[in-house]
């Protein structure tokens, strides 16, 4: 199966103007977005996320490296035929209505008018904008414009959807709806690339993420992989005092209460031995999950580490996570992706 998006060593240097000193916005980014997944691009301001997204679509001309959309090079405009894009901070013409914009988007992708009419109503309904379809953009709120923006990106039923800050300016209800829409699209087999600052949303929606900083990809991996804390597990149930000291060759307890304990096992396979041991000591186990950090914590740590490296400072090892409040375990009992 063709990979929807493959980026190899992509570099982008902005011309430096009179001073001649260019700005290296991308310093060789390589990544792949697989079919059917929701991929998140994360990074602080100036990390190069928008530059990367714009380079993927040919809006910016990469300095070097390659980018393939469904196996086709960027130089081939038909490579974008299966791509839908919502731009960050878009300002669609104010005298245009939502329906007119969607119609224009359809025509630019070569769709016949009859198909555009049919699909426009469907999409406007899907994003909750059918009632406002014939209202001009000038009267839309940011959230409404964003919803129509998503609808126009979907008009030609693209296989890859690229959303740059899709929930920017959208209220919490709208965000949840957009999140649901993206998940529904995944269920339909569509691939989505999201560039967002909203880490909690990315954590909830995305299967894999890339964290960018200063033009480099610091890490790429599944949310589950990135947020998992090695050999630490959260076990919930009912525990008595006999459960506090498991054998050292199996595990050690990090924190303990009558209904939850956090344990550090020696090897992955020891989690089974630990649960057997706990049951043997009168515990009743209700759930067991790998302990996780929030994506925000991972993000901040990685960015901080990268900054320290740039500044030539050796970063101190992070303090052990002992407080449940510091990094609360997620409710997930199964890993994503």
């Amino acid at each position, binding site marked *: 199966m063709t990979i929807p998006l493959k980026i190899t060593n992509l570099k982008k240097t*902005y011309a430096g103007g009179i001073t001649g000193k260019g700005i290296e916005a991308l310093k060789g980014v390589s990544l792949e977005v697989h079919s059917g997944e929701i991929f998140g691009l994360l990074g602080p301001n100036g990390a190069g996320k928008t530059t990367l997204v*714009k380079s993927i*679509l*040919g*809006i*910016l*001309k990469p300095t070097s490296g390659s980018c393939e959309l469904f196996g086709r090079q960027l130089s081939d*405009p*038909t*490579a*974008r*035929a299966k*791509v*839908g*894009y919502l*731009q960050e*901070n*878009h*300002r*669609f*013409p104010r*005298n245009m209505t939502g329906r*007119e914009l969607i*119609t*224009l*988007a*359809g*025509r*630019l*992708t*070569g769709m016949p008018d009859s198909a555009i009419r049919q699909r426009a109503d469907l999409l406007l309904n899907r994003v909750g904008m059918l009632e406002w379809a014939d209202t001009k953009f000038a009267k839309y709120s940011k959230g409404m414009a964003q919803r129509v923006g998503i609808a*126009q990106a979907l008009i030609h039923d693209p296989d890859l959807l*690229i959303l*740059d800050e899709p929930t920017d300016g959208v209220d919490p209800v709208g965000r949840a709806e957009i999140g649901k829409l993206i998940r529904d699209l995944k269920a339909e087999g569509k691939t989505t690339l999201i560039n967002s600052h909203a880490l909690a949303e990315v954590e909830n929606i995305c299967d894999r993420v890339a964290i960018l900083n200063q033009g480099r990809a610091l890490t790429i991996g599944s949310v589950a992989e990135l947020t998992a804390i090695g050999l630490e597990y959260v076990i919930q149930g009912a525990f008595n005092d006999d459960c506090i000291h498991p054998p050292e060759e199996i595990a050690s307890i990090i924190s303990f209460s009558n209904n939850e304990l956090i344990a550090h096992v020696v090897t992955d396979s020891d989690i089974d031995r630990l649960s057997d041991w706990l049951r043997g000591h009168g515990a009743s186990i209700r759930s067991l999950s790998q302990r996780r950090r929030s994506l925000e914590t991972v993000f901040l740590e990685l960015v901080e580490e990268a900054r320290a490296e740039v500044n030539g400072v050796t970063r101190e090892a992070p303090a052990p996570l002992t407080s449940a409040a510091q990094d609360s375990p997620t409710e997930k009992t199964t890993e994503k992706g």
Partner: protein
Amino acid sequence: MFRGILLLTFSTTLKSRVMYLFGAVLMIWSGGVYVLSNATFQITSSGNISLSGMNSFTGVSSLGAVLIFLSVFGASRRLPEMLRPTLAGFYLSKPISRTRLLSYTILSTTIVYSLVILVTLGIYGLLLHQWFPGHVPASEIAQQIGLEVIVFMIYVPMLSFLGLATRSGSFAFLLTFALWLLAQILSLDKMRGLLALVDNSILTQLADFCYYLLPRSSDISAMLTSAKVLGSNSVDWSPLWTSTLSAIGVYLLATLKFRRMDL
């Protein structure tokens, strides 16, 4: 795809305020010509002179120049508007090459504003025909309208290139206007005389070069009058072809520029 851009240009243009200007200019101009043409001026104590019909033919050419000015003004925002960073992604993310996007935009702008000029001058021509039957043959009015439309078509690539280079509709318009002004100055007989007086070969050659490089709009507009005076066999076609060649050259430059642009 072209249909999409053409219809967008059409609806954007019809909704724009420039359309009111076209309407206002047409009303004022026709009203002025009607009043002046029917006016009788007492210029000597011995007699009166009537201007009836005198302004009607020159009116097409002058009104054409004003309409071209308005069209250039209206069209100047088209490309910079499309290419502003907050909208460029919408167009460039579609499966259409930059060359085609630019060509379609230039072509649709040319078609739509040419139609507007054509319709406005057409209405004016009909009014002239109605008010002063027999004074000016309809075929001559039609030919003059055709020449005015050609002049506008020649200016669009230049306007587009300047719009791309400056990314500003206002700057593109001002520069186009400045170039038009330069072309007018260079085509003046007095300018030729002045250059002869200076007697500097480099300056003369530079003036000649600029004269042939820039669209020779006034020469094109005056072609019909020349044909009437000199006869159709003696018409100098060079204003048309040098201007067309320079429009093609500027279009190619604009394409080259657009293909390399970061947006």
